[in-house]
């Protein structure tokens, strides 16, 4: 039963994100008060929950929205938020009951229809919402997508006939049902993502205008957005949930450069920064600057090197792939290039998600030039040039070159790091299966589940499966895990699937990202969520 892991009973955690020793503030009417200023950046799109997929807008919406599920900032465990219960007998038909008393910032009640309408709106193809694909497991999703060919699938008659997914149904004001097209044991766990936030009735009148002044149901309500300068929010008095905030107002101050944000922190002009600039990471300078007012912990970013050995026959022998992996000196690269802002990884799954297991890669992720040489010989060697392609718009030059040097020195393959203009160009090439050799790839979780690092990336026909990875054993483990009636059992199967995949090694794990934050003397209780954002609602102002 999926609900076993997140029943309402499990919610004995305190309001402030589960740290047992703090007694500051309780949900809804937290004490504290005061003002928090945190560094932000300009959202790429209007602030609509279903159309925000990048951090600048995501950070703002995180504080403003309430979803069915809330992720515990320390463990990433899903906890009930608006949901009273999410029940299922077969992992395919879910009944969602929502709590009464939740209100949107405009005073209207949060009802079942607010979820169903918002979800249908986001999933509906012609609305061109970024969060649309989150709804793909729901029955009827395919029927509301555009079917046209070419660049614009919604042009000339490609529009779907219906606007509603058959898998969503409102039962009464506080109950609705979800039916998925296949078994999805971790569906409840997914529902805490921003794209699943409910929308008030006013949203549907004019989404464009709404995106400039959003209304949600979370602990903070939107006040103002001074373009390119600051976004301000204040505490919502009628917030009924358990995850209320302490501070009266939260301001995202927009900085152009990380260095400037760091200077502002040293000058006490800002309370929290969620990134430390490279020049302060060198020699752990930030630790001597800030003392114990900083934290660093793994976040959900996972980086690896991908390849498609169906088109690059030279990589077809698994021994060659293992040899390359064992020729990469991850520890040294992380220390010298990243100043320890990353952590060498032992699998593709990030340590912050439910189901993570250490050491999945086995010895293949250890740096061992001798063993690598043996494996390379056993696998028939590698002739000619090996390219490592990276996108030139993302600061990957230094480390890709370091990886290539490491491979060159350890096993003598002539490895060359080659840039593409940008990420989109690289993805286009990958989508057309025309990139030989190796290429960099990374993943940031959508929801804190091990499944999110496997199924969308390595399962047959998945959108991000640029590896053309196809292993029946792996597929079966995924299907069985999705149908498992027990979360622990499901996770075991996913872990097994990860091991199978790494044995084949279409992807060579490299490192996890870390969230590194700093804060001023005026605030305390700063914690990083698994998503790598500061949990602003839990912060107390001195």
């Amino acid at each position, binding site marked *: 039963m999926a609900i076993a892991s997140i029943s309402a009973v499990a919610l004995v955690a305190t309001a402030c994100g589960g740290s047992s020793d703090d007694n500051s503030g309780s949900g809804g009417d937290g004490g504290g008060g005061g003002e928090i200023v945190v560094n932000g950046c300009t*959202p790429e*799109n209007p602030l609509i929950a279903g159309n925000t997929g*990048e951090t600048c807008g995501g950070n703002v919406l995180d504080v403003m929205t309430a979803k069915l599920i809330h992720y515990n900032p320390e463990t990433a465990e899903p906890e009930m938020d608006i949901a009273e219960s999410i029940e299922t007998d077969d992992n395919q038909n879910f009944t969602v009951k929502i709590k009464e008393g939740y209100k949107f910032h405009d005073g209207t009640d949060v009802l079942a229809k607010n979820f169903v309408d918002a979800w249908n709106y986001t999933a509906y193809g012609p609305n061109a919402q970024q969060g649309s694909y989150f709804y793909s497991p729901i029955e009827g999703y395919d029927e509301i997508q*555009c079917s046209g060919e070419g660049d614009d699938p919604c042009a000339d008659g490609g529009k779907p006939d219906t606007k509603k997914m058959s898998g969503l149904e409102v039962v009464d004001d506080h109950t609705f049902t979800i039916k998925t097209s296949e078994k999805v044991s971790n569906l409840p766990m997914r529902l805490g993502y921003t794209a699943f936030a409910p929308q008030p009735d006013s949203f549907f009148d004019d989404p464009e205008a709404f995106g400039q002044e959003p209304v949600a149901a979370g602990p903070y309500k939107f006040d103002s957005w001074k373009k390119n*300068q600051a976004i301000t929010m204040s505490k919502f008095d009628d917030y009924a949930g358990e995850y209320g905030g302490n501070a009266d107002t939260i301001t995202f*101050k927009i900085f152009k450069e990380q260095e400037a944000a760091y*200077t*502002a922190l040293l000058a006490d002009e800002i309370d929290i920064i969620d990134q430390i600039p490279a020049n302060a990471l060198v020699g752990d300078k930030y630790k001597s600057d800030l003392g114990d007012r900083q934290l660093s912990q793994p976040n959900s970013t996972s980086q690896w090197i991908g390849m498609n050995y169906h088109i690059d026959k030279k990589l077809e022998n698994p021994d060659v792939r293992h040899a390359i992996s064992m020729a990469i000196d991850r520890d040294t690269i992380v220390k010298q290039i990243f100043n320890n802002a990353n952590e060498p990884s032992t699998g593709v799954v990030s340590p912050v998600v439910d189901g993570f297991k250490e050491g999945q890669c086995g010895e293949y992720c250890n740096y061992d030039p001798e063993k690598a040489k043996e494996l390379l010989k056993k696998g028939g060697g590698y002739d000619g040039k090996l390219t490592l392609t990276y996108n030139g*718009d993302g600061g990957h030059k230094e480390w890709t070159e370091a990886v290539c040097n490491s491979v060159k020195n350890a096993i003598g393959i002539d490895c060359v790091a080659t840039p593409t203009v940008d990420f989109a160009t690289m993805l286009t090439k990958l989508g057309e299966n025309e990139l030989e050799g190796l290429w960099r790839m990374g993943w940031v979780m959508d929801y804190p589940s091990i499944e999110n690092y496997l199924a969308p990336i390595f399962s047959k026909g998945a959108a991000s499966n640029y590896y053309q990875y196809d292993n029946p054993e792996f597929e079966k483990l995924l299907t069985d895990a999705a149908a498992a009636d027990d979360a622990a059992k499901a996770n075991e199967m996913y872990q097994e699937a990860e091991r199978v995949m790494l044995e084949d090694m279409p992807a060579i794990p490299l490192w996890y990202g870390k969230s590194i934050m700093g804060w001023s003397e005026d605030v305390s209780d700063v914690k990083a969520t698994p998503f790598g954002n500061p949990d602003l609602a839990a912060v107390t102002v001195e």
Partner: protein
Amino acid sequence: MGKYIIRRLLQMIPVIIGATFLIYAMVFAMPGDPTAGKCGERPCPPAYVAEFNAKYNLNDPLPVQYAKYVGKVAQGDLGENQYGIPVSEDLKDRFAVTAKLGLMALVIEGVIGILAGVLAGLRKGGFIDNLVLVSTLFVISVPIFVTGFTLQYILGLKFEIVPPLVGSDASFYRLLLPGVVLGSLSMAYIARLMRSNIGENYKSDYVRTAKAKGLKQTRIIGVHTLRNSLIPVITFMGYDFGALLGGAIVTEGIFNIHGVGGYIFEGIHNRDGMAVVGAVTALVIIYLIVNLIVDLLYGVLDPRISHD
């Protein structure tokens, strides 16, 4: 005089049209994907990309795009940038800040540079002359980001004499330090330019005549020598003002000033044609007007130059 000004204003029209078209074409010709990064760590869904392209006419050929853009501009609508914010609104905010910063840098570099140049030029080989020569050489050889970060750290963070950052509150007080940093390089150039011109003109015939007539030293220098010597300096400052408006990217980054330079840089980076063309067109117009003012000042400074 009036005829001359009108002629000059009319000449601006083709320049502006040509400049906007060139910039539009360049932004359009840049490789890369304008929707890159708009959807976080993954590519945007096709429907999103299609809608985005339709909204910004990115599917049209370049001349059609440009014609649509000019048509809108003619109605006073500069379009929206890729964040969905009207460009005119953006430019209003950013030019207000940048103009303040540029003027401050210009005043600082003008006053100090001219003063140092005059003092050095009158006593060539003296102590002040050597001091000015050495210190300007130092300022010219240190890159601006070094100057910026160092002064920010010492004056802003360590001794807390001035605020280290500007941010959204762009008051003159907060802009003081960035103004000094931004103007420092040109200050050194002006001082050296002034020094050589004063030295040259001070030896000229009309100054000798003025001396022979028994005029006061202050009048000889302040009126006769200075006026003539200012012509190259004014030319340089006119050019520099334009450069300060658009080229203050480094200084803006260090002090977190939301100005025009950074706006253009980001626009180019995101292939945000609307934003770049709007901002650069405004810069071109300002540049042309400043140029005209400089030309008119020549006539004031040196009666031998006349525009009639």
